[in-house]
C-alpha cells in the first residue's frame, strides 16, 4: 500500500509538469504575449510536485519509522549528541521542519528494536510491499512496473519505478529547486512579456537588431517539459527508462540553450550540447546492449507477476558479490556469475555468466553516458557554451539538476560497477575537476566561471563516487545543487540588473547597488569554497556551510582510497589542490563583481537590485545552501541519501588482486585529517583571491602578462574545442563530403557508364539492325518487287487472255502431273 501511495505521489509530481507543458505550449498563449498565466501554471505544477514529493518523503519515512536516520545513531554513538542538536537547525531541503517532527520519537524507539537490521538496509530489496508483514515497517525500497512498452519472448521493456531514499531526496531536491527557479524566471524573463522584443545579440544583415514577439510562455513550457523529463529520469526503475529520459532531458536542454533561436551562437551551443551528449549516449547505448544481451532485463529491482511472486531478478540482484564485495566469478571459466538468486529467474538467456571485461564495458558504457550528461572530461566543452541559454536555465538545467543526472546515474547504477570502472570514474572526475577549475581561474564571463565551477564540482562528485564514496558523491550532488543554483540565480540577478552585461571586468562594486544579491552570493561562494570554523560549538564539530561537509566527505574518501592504494595518490592530491583553486576563483568572482570600485560607470549607473520575485528565491536558496548539510555525515541529509546505499559500500572491497576500496570505517578514520587539509587549501585559496582581487594591492594584469603562455592556454580552454574540431568535426564533414561524392561519382558513375555502354551497344545493335536485318528484309522485299514488276506485263487486263492463261495453266498442270506420276 505504501508503495502504491509513494508511486502515485511521485507520479503526480512527475506527470504534472507534462500536463503543464501541454497546456502551456498548446494553450494559445501566443495570442496574449503579455500574460503571465503560463508561468503561473508552470509554477503551480512544479510546486504541487514539490508538495507531493515532500509528502512522499514523509510517508516513506513514517512507514519505515525513519530507519535510515536511526542507523547513524546506532553506528556512530559518539555523534549522537551533535545530531540531536542539529535537529533544531533549519535546513534539510525544506522538508526538514516537518521531517524533524516525525523523526523524534521513532528514532528513539527504533534504537532498541531494529538497530541491527537497519544496518543492512540495502538488503531489504524486497520490493513487494505486502510481502511480509513484519518487514513492512522497515521496507525502504519500492519498485514495480508502471507501463509496459513491449514484450518479446522473455524480454520485457517497460516503464518502472524504483523508489528508495535517494529517489525521494532527488525528487524533493529537484522539485524544490525547480520551484525556486521558476519563480526567479518569472522575473528574469519578464522582458519577454511583450509583442516587440528586441534581441540585442541577434543582428540582421541591415545592421538592425532583431525584433520579435516575446516568448514568455514558450520558456515556461520548455521548463515544464524539462522538469517532467528530469523527474522521469529520477523515478526510473530500469536503465532503459533512464536512457529514455536521459535523451528527453537532452532535448529539453537543447531547446532551452537554443531558446534565443535567432542567435547563431545559441543554436550552435544547443547543437553542440546535444551532439556531445549523443556521443556519450553512444557509449550508454553500448552499455545497454551488453546489459540487455547478458542479463535480459533492464530493471533495477525484481519483477513481479500479478500474484506478487518474483518472476525475474533485477539487475541489482543478479550480480552477486562475495563477502569481500567482489563480484562472484564462476569456477569453470572465470566469468562473472549472473543471477545468483535462482537461475530460473532469468528465462531469456541461457547464459549464466558474463565475461568480466564485458561487465567493465557495460559499466564504462553507462558511465560514458554520464560523462556526456555531466560534462566530464573529455566531453566537458559543451557546458560552458550552454551558458547561451537564459540564466534560469543555466541554474536549473546546467548546474543543479540535469548535469547532476550523470552523477545520480552513477550512484543509482553503483551495484553494477566493478573496480576498474570505478577507477576510471575516479580518474575522469579527477581530471575534470582540475581542468575545469584551472579554466575557471581565467574566465571573465560571470556565467562561464560558474559553468566551469560546475564542471569542476561535478568532477568532485564523480571522484567521490569513483573512490567508493557513494554517499559522499551524492551528498555533494545535493549540496552543490543548492549552492550552485543559488549562485547561478545570483549571477542572473546581476545580469538582469546590469542589462545583460556578463563580463566581470565591466562590473565591480555592485555590493552597494544590489546588497541582497551580493550577500546571498557570498553565502554560495563560502559554501562552495568549503570554508569552515572548527570548534565553534565544541571541539569535535565544525561550523560550516553545506559545501564544506560534502567536499570534506569526498576528500576524506579520496584520502582513504589513496591510503589503501598508494599508486593512485593523484586522486587525493589533485582534488586537494583544486579545493584551493576553487576557493580562489569563486572569491575572485565575488570580489571582481561586487567588491572594489566600479570599473564601468555606465554599467554601474544603470545597475539595480532585482525585484522581490527574484530575490526571494535567492534568500530561500541561500538558507538551504548554508544549512542543508548540517551535521555533515551524521546529519539527516547524508543519512537520508545513504539510507539505501548499495550493500557492499559500507564495508568496502578488499580485493585479493587489484584495487582495494575503502569502507566506512576506513574513511571515518581519516576524516579529521582530510577535513583539515581541505580547509587549509580552501583558506589559502581564499586568501590569495583576497590578495589579488579584494585588496587590489597586487597588479593582476602584470601577473597575467608574465604568465601569458599559461593564461592563453587556459583562456583557450586547454584547446579542447580546437582539438575536437580537428579530430572529430572536420573528419566527419570530410567523411560526409566523401560519401556524398562517392554516391555522386562512383555509384552514379557506374550507373551512368553502364548506361553509356548500353547506349553504345545499342548503337551497334542499331547498325546491325539497319544493315543486316533490315538489309535482308529489304532484299526480300526488293526482289519481290522487281519480280512483280517484271511480271506486271503479264497482267494485261485482257479478259480473253486470262481465259487463255487458265486453259494453258490447266494443261500445263496436267502435263506436269502426268509426267511426274509417270516418272
Amino acid at each position, binding site marked *: 500500500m505504501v508503495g502504491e501511495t509513494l508511486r502515485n505521489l511521485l507520479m503526480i509530481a512527475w506527470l504534472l509538469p507534462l500536463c503543464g507543458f501541454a497546456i502551456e505550449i498548446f494553450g494559445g498563449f501566443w495570442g496574449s504575449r503579455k500574460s503571465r498565466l503560463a508561468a503561473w501554471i508552470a509554477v503551480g505544477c512544479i510546486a504541487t510536485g514539490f508538495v507531493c514529493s515532500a509528502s512522499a518523503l514523509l510517508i516513506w519515512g513514517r512507514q519505515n519509522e525513519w530507519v535510515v536516520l536511526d542507523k547513524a545513531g546506532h553506528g556512530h554513538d559518539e555523534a549522537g549528541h551533535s545530531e540531536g542538536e542539529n535537529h533544531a537547525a533549519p535546513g534539510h531541503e525544506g522538508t526538514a521542519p516537518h521531517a524533524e517532527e516525525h523523526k523524534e520519537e521513532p528514532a528513539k524507539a527504533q534504537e532498541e528494536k531494529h538497530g541491527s537490521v537497519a544496518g543492512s538496509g540495502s538488503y531489504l530489496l524486497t520490493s513487494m510491499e505486502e510481502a511480509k508483514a513484519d518487514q513492512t515497517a522497515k521496507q525502504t525500497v519500492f519498485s514495480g512496473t508502471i507501463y509496459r512498452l513491449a514484450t*518479446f519472448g522473455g524480454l520485457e521493456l517497460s516503464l518502472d519505478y524504483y523508489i528508495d531514499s535517494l529517489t525521494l531526496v532527488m525528487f524533493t531536491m529537484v522539485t524544490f529547486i525547480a520551484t525556486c527557479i521558476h519563480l526567479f524566471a518569472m522575473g528574469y524573463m519578464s522582458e519577454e512579456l511583450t509583442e516587440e522584443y528586441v534581441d540585442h545579440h541577434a543582428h540582421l544583415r541591415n545592421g538592425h537588431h532583431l525584433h520579435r514577439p516575446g516568448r514568455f510562455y514558450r520558456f515556461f513550457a520548455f521548463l515544464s517539459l524539462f522538469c517532467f523529463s528530469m523527474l522521469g529520469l529520477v523515478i526510473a526503475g530500469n536503465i532503459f527508462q533512464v536512457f529514455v529520459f536521459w535523451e*528527453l532531458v537532452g532535448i529539453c536542454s537543447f531547446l532551452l540553450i537554443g531558446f534565443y533561436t535567432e542567435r547563431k551562437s545559441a543554436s550552435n551551443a544547443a547543437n553542440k550540447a546535444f551532439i556531445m551528449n549523443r556521443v556519450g549516449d553512444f557509449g550508454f547505448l553500448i552499455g545497454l*546492449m551488453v546489459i540487455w*544481451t547478458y542479463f535480459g532485463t533492464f530493471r533495477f529491482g525484481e519483477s513481479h507477476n500479478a500474484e506478487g511472486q518474483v518472476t525475474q531478478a533485477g539487475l541489482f540482484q543478479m550480480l552477486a558479490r562475495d563477502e569481500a564485495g567482489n563480484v562472484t566469478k564462476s569456477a569453470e571459466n572465470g566469468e562473472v556469475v549472473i543471477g545468483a538468486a535462482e537461475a530460473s529467474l532469468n528465462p531469456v538467456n541461457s547464459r549464466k555468466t558474463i565475461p568480466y571485461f564485458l561487465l567493465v564495458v557495460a559499466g564504462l558504457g553507462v558511465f560514458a553516458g554520464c560523462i556526456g550528461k555531466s560534462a566530464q572530461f573529455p566531453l566537458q566543452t559543451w557546458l560552458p557554451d550552454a551558458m547561451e541559454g537564459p540564466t534560469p536555465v543555466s541554474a536549473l538545467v546546467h548546474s543543479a539538476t540535469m548535469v547532476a543526472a550523470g552523477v545520480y546515474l552513477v550512484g543509482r547504477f553503483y551495484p553494477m560497477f566493478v573496480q576498474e570502472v570505478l577507477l576510471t570514474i575516479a580518474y575522469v572526475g579527477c581530471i575534470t575537476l582540475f581542468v575545469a577549475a584551472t579554466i575557471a581561474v581565467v574566465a571573465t564571463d560571470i556565467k562561464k566561471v560558474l559553468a566551469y565551477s560546475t564542471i569542476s564540482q561535478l568532477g568532485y562528485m564523480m571522484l567521490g563516487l569513483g573512490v567508493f564514496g557513494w554517499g559522499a558523491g551524492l551528498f555533494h550532488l545535493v549540496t552543490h545543487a543548492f549552492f550552485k543554483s543559488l549562485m547561478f540565480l545570483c549571477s542572473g540577478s546581476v545580469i538582469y540588473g546590469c542589462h545583460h552585461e556578463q563580463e566581470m571586468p565591466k562590473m565591480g562594486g555592485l555590493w552597494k547597488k544590489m546588497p541582497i544579491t551580493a550577500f546571498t552570493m557570498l553565502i554560495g561562494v563560502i559554501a562552495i569554497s568549503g570554508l569552515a570554523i572548527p570548534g565553534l560549538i565544541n571541539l569535535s564539530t565544525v561550523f560550516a556551510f553545506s559545501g564544506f561537509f560534502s567536499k570534506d566527505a569526498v576528500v576524506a574518501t579520496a584520502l582513504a582510497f589513496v591510503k589503501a592504494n598508494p599508486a593512485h595518490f593523484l586522486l587525493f592530491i589533485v582534488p586537494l589542490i583544486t579545493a584551493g583553486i576553487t576557493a580562489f576563483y569563486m572569491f575572485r568572482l565575488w570580489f571582481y563583481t561586487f567588491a572594489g570600485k566600479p570599473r564601468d560607470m555606465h554599467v554601474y549607473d544603470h545597475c539595480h537590485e532585482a525585484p522581490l520575485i527574484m530575490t526571494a528565491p535567492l534568500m530561500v536558496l541561500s538558507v538551504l545552501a548554508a544549512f542543508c548539510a548540517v551535521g555533515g555525515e551524521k546529519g539527516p541529509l547524508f543519512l537520508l541519501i545513504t539510507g539505501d546505499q548499495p550493500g557492499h559500500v559500507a564495508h568496502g572491497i578488499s580485493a585479493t588482486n587489484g584495487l582495494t576500496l575503502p569502507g566506512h570505517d576506513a574513511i571515518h578514520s581519516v576524516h579529521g585529517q582530510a577535513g583539515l587539509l581541505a580547509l587549509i587549501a580552501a583558506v589559502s585559496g581564499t586568501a590569495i583571491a583576497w590578495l589579488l582581487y579584494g585588496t587590489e594591492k597586487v597588479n593582476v594584469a602584470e601577473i597575467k602578462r608574465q604568465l601569458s603562455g599559461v593564461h592563453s592556454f587556459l583562456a583557450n580552454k586547454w584547446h579542447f574545442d580546437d582539438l575536437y574540431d580537428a579530430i572529430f568535426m572536420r573528419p566527419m564533414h570530410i567523411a560526409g563530403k566523401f560519401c556524398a561524392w562517392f554516391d555522386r561519382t562512383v555509384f552514379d558513375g557506374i550507373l551512368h557508364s553502364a548506361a553509356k555502354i548500353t547506349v553504345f551497344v545499342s548503337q551497334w545493335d542499331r547498325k546491325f539492325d539497319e544493315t543486316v536485318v533490315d538489309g535482308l528484309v529489304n532484299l526480300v522485299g526488293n526482289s519481290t518487287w522487281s519480280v512483280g514488276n517484271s511480271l506486271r506485263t503479264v497482267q494485261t487486263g485482257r479478259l480473253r487472255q486470262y481465259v487463255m492463261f487458265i486453259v494453258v495453266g490447266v494443261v500445263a498442270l496436267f502435263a506436269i502431273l502426268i509426267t511426274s506420276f509417270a516418272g
Partner: protein
Amino acid sequence: MNPFFLLSILIFLPLLGALILLMFDERNAEAMRFWSLAVTLMTFGFSIALYFQYDPAQGMLTAEVKDWIPTWNVYYRLGVDGISLPLVVLTGLVSSLAMVASWSITKHVRGYLILFLMLETGMMGVFLSLDFFLFYVFWEVMLLPMYFLIGVWGGPRKEYAAIKFFLYTLAGSVLMLVAMLMFYFYSGAKPESFNLVALADMASKGGLLSPNMQVTAFALLFIGFAIKLPAFPVHTWLPDAHVEAPTPISMILAGVLLKMGGYGIIRIAFPLCPYGAQYFAYTMVAIGVISIIYGAFAALAQTDFKRLVAYSSVSHMGYVLLGLAIWKINEAGDTINSSYWQMGLNGAMFQMIAHGISSTGMFFMVGVVYDRVHHRDLNKFGGLMGTMPLYSGLAAGLFFAGLGLPGLCGFIGEVFVVISCWSFSPMLAILAASGVILTAGYILWAMQRVYLGAEYKGPHPEALTPSNARENAVGFILLALAIVFGVAPALLFNVMEPSVKAMAQAAEAGYKQSASQLNELQAQR
C-alpha cells in the same frame, strides 16, 4: 463487415474512384480533388476497420481466394496478418495525407489523381496479396503510376529521376521474377503453386528448396527488395527520385514504397528460404550498418534540403535491414538469440512504420517551404521559426521524430533494433549505435540552417506566409501519430508480435531442417 470483402475493397476502391474521376468535368479540379480525398479517406477508414477487426491471436487471416489463372495455379488470394496490417493502415494514412498535400498540384489534375489512386491500389495490393504471382503483378502495377507521377509532375530533372527509378525497380523485380519461377518450378510443390502461405509452410518443414537453391533464391529476392528498401549500394535512385518527385509523391515514396522492400524480405524472403536468410544474415546486417552510417554521412554533406531527407531515409531504413537479420545460430542449427531476434524483427517492423510517419512528415515539411520559395538550398534558409512559427514547431517535432527522440516514434524502432543487435555481433552493434551521433548531427544541423537563425537568407522572402490550415492539419496528424506510437508502441507490437513470432519460429524450424539435409548430403559424400 465481412473481412474477406474488406480486403478486396481496400484494393479496388481507389481504382473505382479513379474510374469515377473520368466522369468529372475536366475544369472542375477542386471537385476532383475532394472526390479523390474522399476515396483515399474511405480507403483509410476501411483499413482502420480492418485493424479493429483483426485479432492478433488468430495469425494469418487468409481470405478471399478466387481462381484467377487456374491453369498455372494462380489464385486471387488475399490475406492479412500482423506483419502486413500495420503497413496497410500506414498506406491508407499516408495516401490520405499525401492527397491532402496534393492540393498544390495544378497541372493535369485529373491525370494526376487517377495515377495517384492507381498507385494506392498497387500498394494495397502488394501488402494484401498472398499469392506470389499476384504480389508480383501488384508490384509492377505500382511501378508504372510512380514512373509517370515522377516523370510528369516532377522537378527539373524529372525524366532522369523517373528513368532511374524505373530501371532500378525493374531490375529488382526481374530478379524477383526469377526467384518466383524458382519457387514455382523447383520447389517440389505439386501442383506447382504461388501460394505464399503454403510455400512458407513447406519451407518451414524443409521441403521447399534445397539449401543451395535457397541461397540463390534468397540472393535474388534480397537484391530485389534491397533496391526498394533501399540499401547501400543500390540506393542511388532514391535521392534523385525523392528530389525530383512532387511533394505528395515523395511522401508516398518514403512513407510506403520503401516499406515494400522490408515487407518483401520479411514476408517472402525469410519464410521461403530460411537457410538462405541465415546464410546471408551477416551480410545483411553489415549492409544495414553500412547503410546507416553511409546514409548519415551522405546526409551530413548535402546542401539540398530534400536530398538530406532522402539520405536520412537510406540511413533509417538501414535499421530495418539490421533488425531483420540479427539471427544467430550455433553449430547445431539452433537459434541462440531467439528473443533478441524477435525483438529485432519487431523493432524493424516498427521502424518501418515509424519511418513512414516521420519521413512522410519531413518530406511534407520540405514541400511546404518549397511551395513558397521554390528552392531547397539549405544555406539559403534561416529564421523560419520567426516567420512561420507553427509550421516550424511541427517540423521540429517531426524532425525530432526522425532523429530518434524518446517519446516519438523513431526512437523505439531504432533503439530496439540496436540493443538487440549485440547478441548477433558486438562490432556491428557498436557501429550501428554510432549512427545516433551522426543522425543527431545532420538533423540538428539542417534544422539550425533552416528554422533557426535571425533571418531568411534566400529569394522570395515575401512568400514565407504562415502555414495554412491544410498544411497544419497534415503536420498535426503526423506529429500526433509520432507521439502516440512513441509513447504507446504496444499499439503496434500487440498486433505484430504474434505474427512475427510465428514467422521467426517457422524460419528457425526451416533452417534446422535445411541444415540437417545439408549435413546428410555431406555425410553421403
